[in-house]
C-alpha cells in the first residue's frame, strides 16, 4: 500500500516503516561485525606474532599482546572493537603500517569504479540480449547469445585478461596497459571521491580523464562480460517464463504490437527478479575480482584483501570483510526498496 503523506496516520506509518528499516540494517551490521570478529579470533593465525615476528623474546611478545589488548576476555575485546568500528577506527594494518580505514578509502574506490563500469556494461548489454534471445527463442540469434553467455561462464578471467592485454594493449594499442593511470598522470588530480573518472571531471582535467578511462575500459569490459553472461541467461529464462503466461496472449488478442508485448507486458513483471540478479552480480563485482585486479595491477580491494590474508594482517582482513559485508547489506536493502516500488503486489 502506498504511503499517504497527507494524513497524520500516513506520516506515522512512514516513520514506523523507516525505524524498522534502520533497525534491521543496524542489527544485520552488528551480526556481520560479530561473525567477522569471532572468525578473526578463531583462525589459527597469531596476530601478535605477525607484528613482532618470530625472533621476538617471550617478554616482547607478552608486552605486545597486552598492548594490543588481546589478553582481555573475548567479549570485552568484541565490545571495544564494536566501539572502535562505530567511530570509524578499524585499527592499523601491519603490512602497510597505515590506518586500515585510510587504506580502504584508497583501494575501495578503485574497485568501485571498475565494478560500476562493469555492471553498467553487463546490464546495458545483458538485459537486451536476454530479452532478444527469449523473444526469438530457437533462432540463430538465440543460439548466438547462448553461446556467448556460455563462454562468459567458462572462460577463465585471468586468461581473458591476458589475451585482452596482448591484443588490445600490446598489438593494437587501443587501450592503456595495467594500472589505473599512467605514472605521468599519477596524483595529478586531488582524490576527492577516490574515483579517478569523477575526480578528473571535478578538476576539469580531461587529459587525466581520457587516460584513466583508457586504463579502465579493458578490465571493466572483461568484468562486464562475465556479469553480462549471467544477466543475459537469467533474463532469457525469466522472459521465457513470462512469454508463456496467459496475459501475454491477452495482450496479443488486443492487437498490441509485438514490441509492446515484449517490453511492456512481459518485461515489466520480471523487473523484480532481475533486480535481485543485478544486485547480486554488482555485489560480486564489488568484492573485487582478485584475478582481474592481479592481471591488471589494479590497486583494488580484492588485491588488498589477498595481500592482507597472506601477511596475517588481521585488522586489514576484518576491515575489508566489513566493507564487503556492508556493500551486500546496502545492495540488498536497495533491492528491497525497489521491489516495493516496482511490484504493486508487495506491500
Amino acid at each position, binding site marked *: 500500500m502506498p504511503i499517504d503523506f497527507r494524513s497524520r496516520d500516513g506520516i506515522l506509518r512512514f516513520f514506523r516503516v523507516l525505524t524498522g528499516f534502520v533497525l534491521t540494517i543496524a542489527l544485520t551490521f552488528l551480526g556481520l561485525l560479530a561473525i567477522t570478529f569471532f572468525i578473526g579470533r578463531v583462525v589459527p593465525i597469531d596476530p601478535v606474532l605477525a607484528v613482532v615476528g618470530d625472533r621476538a623474546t617471550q617478554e616482547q611478545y607478552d608486552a605486545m599482546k597486552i598492548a594490543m589488548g588481546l589478553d582481555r576476555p573475548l567479549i570485552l575485546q568484541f565490545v571495544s572493537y564494536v566501539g572502535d568500528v562505530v567511530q570509524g577506527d578499524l585499527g592499523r594494518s601491519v603490512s602497510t603500517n597505515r590506518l586500515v580505514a585510510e587504506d580502504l578509502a584508497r583501494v575501495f574506490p578503485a574497485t568501485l569504479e571498475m565494478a560500476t563500469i562493469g555492471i553498467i556494461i553487463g546490464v546495458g548489454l545483458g538485459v537486451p540480449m536476454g530479452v532478444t534471445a527469449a523473444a526469438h527463442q530457437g533462432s540463430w540469434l538465440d543460439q548466438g547469445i547462448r553461446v556467448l553467455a556460455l563462454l562468459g561462464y567458462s572462460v577463465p578471467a585471468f586468461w581473458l585478461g591476458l589475451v585482452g592485454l596482448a591484443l588490445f594493449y600490446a598489438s593494437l594499442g587501443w587501450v592503456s596497459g595495467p594500472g589505473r593511470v599512467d605514472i605521468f598522470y599519477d596524483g595529478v588530480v586531488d582524490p576527492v571521491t577516490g574515483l579517478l573518472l569523477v575526480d578528473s571531471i571535478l578538476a576539469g582535467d580531461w587529459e587525466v580523464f581520457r587516460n584513466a578511462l583508457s586504463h579502465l575500459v579493458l578490465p571493466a569490459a572483461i568484468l562486464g562480460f562475465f556479469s553480462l553472461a549471467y544477466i543475459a541467461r537469467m533474463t532469457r529464462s525469466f522472459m521465457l517464463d513470462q512469454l508463456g503466461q496467459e496475459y501475454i496472449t491477452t495482450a496479443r488478442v*488486443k492487437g498490441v504490437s509485438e514490441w509492446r508485448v515484449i517490453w511492456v507486458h512481459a518485461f515489466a513483471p520480471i523487473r523484480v527478479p532481475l533486480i535481485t540478479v543485478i544486485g547480486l552480480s554488482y555485489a560480486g563485482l564489488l568484492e573485487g575480482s582478485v584475478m582481474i585486479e592481479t592481471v591488471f595491477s589494479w590497486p583494488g580491494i580484492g588485491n588488498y584483501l589477498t595481500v592482507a590474508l597472506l601477511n596475517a594482517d588481521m585488522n586489514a582482513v576484518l576491515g575489508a570483510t566489513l566493507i564487503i559485508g556492508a556493500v551486500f547489506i546496502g545492495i540488498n536493502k536497495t533491492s528491497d526498496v525497489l521491489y516495493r516500488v516496482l511490484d504493486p503486489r508487495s506491500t
Partner: protein
Amino acid sequence: MTPLLEIENLRVSFPTTQGRIEVVKGVSFTLGRERLGIVGESGSGKSMTGRAILRLIRSPGEVTAERMMFDGTDLLSRSERAMRPLRGARMSMIMQDPKFSLNPVMTVGAQIAEAVRAHESVPRRALANRVREMLEAVRINDPDRVARMYPHEVSGGMGQRVMIAMMLIPRPDLLIADEPTSALDVSVQAQVLDLIDELIVNNGMGLLLISHDLNLVARYCDRILVMNSGEVVESCDAADLHAATHPYTRGLLAAIPRIDETRDVLPVLDRSAWSGT
C-alpha cells in the same frame, strides 16, 4: 450478405516425438451475427479452434484450412503484422481465468485503455471517459476507483467483467469466449454470461462461446457444435439439442445429473459406440 466467419476444413497440429499430432482435424462451420456454441470435453480441440481463428497458435504449432474468411477477408494469408489491426478491433477473445489473463503489474484501467490505444489515438481525457463508460456497462460501481486497482485487488467475478470490458471496448464484430465462466463461482457465472449475452445482442455482434457445459451453451446460444477429439460430431440448433442423434452427444446428455432424478448411478460414456475400437 457474407457471413462473419467462414471456416472450412480447419486443421491444427503440433509436433511431438512421435510425429505431428492433429488436435483439430478438419472443422468447418460458418457464423453470422449470431451466437454459436462449441461444446466438448477437455482435449476435444474446442479452445484450439478458437485460438486458430485469431491466429494465436504459435510455431511450432501449425494451422491449415481450405478457407478461413473473416467478413470477406482471408485470415490465413495475413502476416502477423497484418493480423494486428483485426485483433481486438474486429475480433476479440475473453479468456478463461482473470487471475492469469490480466497483467499483474498494470492497473485495470491502463489495460482496458490499452485495448483502445492499440488501434486508435484518442485524447487522454476522452479515453478515460470511455474506460469509465465501459466499466459502467459491465456493471462495475465506482469505476474510477476500480480503474486504479491492480488485478490482484479485484475478485474473480470483477476480474472477468474487466476482461469483458477490455475485449469489448474497441467494439469488435466477433467475440470468442473461451470458457469465460469456468474459473468463477456458480453464483457469479450467470451474471457474467447474462452480461456477455446482453452486450452481444445489443451491439449485433457474433459470439463463439466455447464451453464444456452443455446446459449453459444450450441456454445462451442459437446453434451448437459438439466436438470430440478434434472433429465436429454434431451440429444442431440449440433448441433441438435434446433430439441430438450422435451417440457421443447422446452419451453426454445422458450423463447430466438432474435435481429431481432418482438414478443411483450416472451412465459412463461408452466410447466404442462412435470411435469404432
